[in-house]
């Protein structure tokens, strides 16, 4: 009895099966299709139901309101804005305010977090206790409470504008915030800016060249005198040739407040302070864990090479620790951004305050506005997370892992 080899199924069918069904084959596909259909149906029901209900109750719907006049003012605007601008512009104003407080908060939180972590790991008894106390106190108190504390503490400590603290007669601190002179561009401004940009770009490429020379040929090039010349000398010469690039508008006390100058509002200071110190406590623990995850032999190896403790940390330990640090660090960045929505409690005009707050109750279009707000937070979070993933990937790659 001769046995014939069974014919293998057609390649194309196998391929489709693998692509569509995953490991479970055709059964899997059917289940997944049904599941997707149910999800789609639920989504459709929710949307159509909401639409019908809004229509029944004569509640305004749609995004037409974005073009209407907002009719209210905002305290801190990074782009020009008045009450006669549209709701769309309010949205952008709020978004920028959220972004600026998040970015500044993230920078400070990272710096403070690293410092506190290094303190906690320090062999110095006092420093490490201070680091420990900082972490234990800050991370165990609710962040809203801390925001209110900083706000009311900052406000209570500062005098009113008429008795403001003068810093050399050019900057003033009061409970209306910090007022500083504002630079105003003059005729030589463009040339100055162009030279400055050129200086920065040239210095960066010089540094890149020097590092390559160091890594590939072991050649040490001293570049700092050239960089100094490019960054400071060149702009100075331009200033001498084409005159002052800008003058300063000094703030002056007029009536209730200061007129002229730029101002940092106390709400911004309090919010940034609270968010960065709070998040720093968590970052400190993440960094500490990261550094401890590097074998202590690395530290000893650095010491035996004659490197100082600081250099060993900077050149050997921290780069290896970054691999462990980056993913949870991303979480903290996302948390900080989302926590910035607590700004409404102290009157900082962030996205939730001016958009999901004021604009929502002026227009009454809750669904559209909340959907847009959620979309924006999602987008910011996904972008942050993408940037951090790229950074994490680069760190891993540079370690050859």
């Amino acid at each position, binding site marked *: 009895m001769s046995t014939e080899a069974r014919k293998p199924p057609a390649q194309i069918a196998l391929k489709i099966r693998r692509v569509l069904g995953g490991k479970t084959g055709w059964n899997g596909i059917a289940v997944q299709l049904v599941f997707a259909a149910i999800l789609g149906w639920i989504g459709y029901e*929710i949307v159509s*139901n*909401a639409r*019908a*209900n*809004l229509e*029944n*109750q*004569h*509640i*305004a719907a749609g995004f037409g309101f974005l073009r209407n006049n907002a*009719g*209210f*003012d*905002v*305290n801190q605007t990074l782009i020009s804005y008045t*009450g006669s601008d549209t709701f769309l512009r309010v949205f952008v104003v709020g978004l920028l305010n959220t972004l600026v407080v998040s970015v500044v908060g993230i920078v400070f939180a990272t710096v403070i977090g690293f410092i506190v972590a290094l303190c906690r790991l320090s062999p110095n008894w006092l420093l490490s206790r201070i680091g420990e106390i900082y972490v234990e106190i800050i991370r165990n108190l609710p962040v809203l409470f801390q925001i209110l504390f900083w706000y*009311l503490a900052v*406000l*209570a400590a500062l005098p*009113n504008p008429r008795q403001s603290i003068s810093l050399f007669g050019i900057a003033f601190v009061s*409970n*209306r915030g910090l007022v500083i002179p504002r630079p105003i561009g003059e005729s030589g401004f463009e040339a100055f800016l162009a030279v400055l940009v050129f200086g920065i770009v040239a210095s960066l490429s010089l540094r890149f060249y020097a590092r390559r020379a160091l890594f590939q040929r072991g050649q040490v090039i001293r570049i700092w005198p050239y960089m100094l010349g490019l960054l400071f000398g060149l702009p100075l010469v331009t200033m001498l040739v084409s005159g002052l690039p800008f003058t300063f508008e000094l703030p002056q006390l*007029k*009536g*209730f*407040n200061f*007129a002229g100058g730029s101002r940092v509002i*106390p*709400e911004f200071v309090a919010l940034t302070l609270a968010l960065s110190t709070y998040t720093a406590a968590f970052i400190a623990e993440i960094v500490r864990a990261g550094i401890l995850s590097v074998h202590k032999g690395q530290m000893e190896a650095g010491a035996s090479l004659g490197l100082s403790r600081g250099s060993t940390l900077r050149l050997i330990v921290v780069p290896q620790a970054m691999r462990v640090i980056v993913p949870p660090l991303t979480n903290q960045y996302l948390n900080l951004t989302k926590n910035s*929505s607590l700004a*409404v*409690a*102290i*009157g900082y*005009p962030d996205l*939730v*305050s*001016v958009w*999901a*707050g*004021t604009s*929502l*109750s*002026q*227009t*009454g*279009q*809750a*669904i559209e506005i*909340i959907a847009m707000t959620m979309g924006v937070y999602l987008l910011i979070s996904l972008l942050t997370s993408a940037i951090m993933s790229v950074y994490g990937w680069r760190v891993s790659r540079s370690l050859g892992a």
Partner: protein
Amino acid sequence: MKRVTLALTLALAAGLTAQAADAQTLKTIKDRGTLSCGVSQGLPGFSSPDDKGNWTGLDVDVCRAIAAAIFNDPTKVKYVPTSAKDRFTALQSGEIDVLSRNTTWTISRDTSLGANFTGVTYYDGQGFMVKKSLKVNSALELNSASVCVQTGTTTEQNLADYFKANNMKYEVIAFGTNDETVKAYEAGRCDVFTTDQSGLYSNRLKLANPGDHMVLPEIISKEPLGPMVRHGDDQWFDIVKWTLFALVTTEELGITSKNVDEKSKMENPELKRVLGTDGNFGEQLGLTKDWVVRIVKATGNYGEVFDRNVGSGSPLGIARGLNNLWNKGGLQYAPPIR
């Protein structure tokens, strides 16, 4: 607060089916056994809880009057504190049956929120409060001032209009709740606190030294405050509307919580109609014949409600002014019950 808005929005988006299809608010309330009434988070004189947790105030008495008309028991009310920016969503989503929370009647709110105003319980106007030490006597001297305001109010827009119209600069700091706004004003973050004038008097009581602050004479807007109900249930709209009219009518006829029993025995045709011994207007509303008697026994007439909560009998001591009856120089006027 954000979470509340979010939850309410989701409720609005998804769970609304039952509420929207169901226009029988009165029946729902009777089945539930309580009236769900949206009030403020604490504005003395209008709606605020005392130290035992009992709500009092002019807006609260409106809720009590409605509950009395339905259940003959003014205590059958569940008070839902709402912030300025959450209040409409709470009404739209069906969490509350009526919003009685010093809310200004405007065309945009009446037309785009899916809700109706049922009348005016208090004629108000926006004013400014400053520290006496600033030595300001008029709102026109407020150029370049910092102004604290509660977010999500008509106040915010009136403020922008007023300063623009008078060519003055200002800085606005908007807070989520009334208490946060007052706290920031007291901490010196701003020179001026602005809200409806009644609210200024009411909030001044919360300050450490009320005597150090003064309300400026200017009134920069019309703020007719009144309750709101959802669209789609005309019977319920009528009940709330006529409860307000009953309060005013009884004051006009001199019926008070004390003399209502005597008055209902009198042979005056108008009194008989209003107090239900003649005719069946209450039943046409879906209530009982003696609905006005129930209301007056629970809260007293409009004059009593006003005096007890915000007028001469209260710490606020606000004069009747525009809120006096139409035949005494005010604006309170009710269509006849006949």
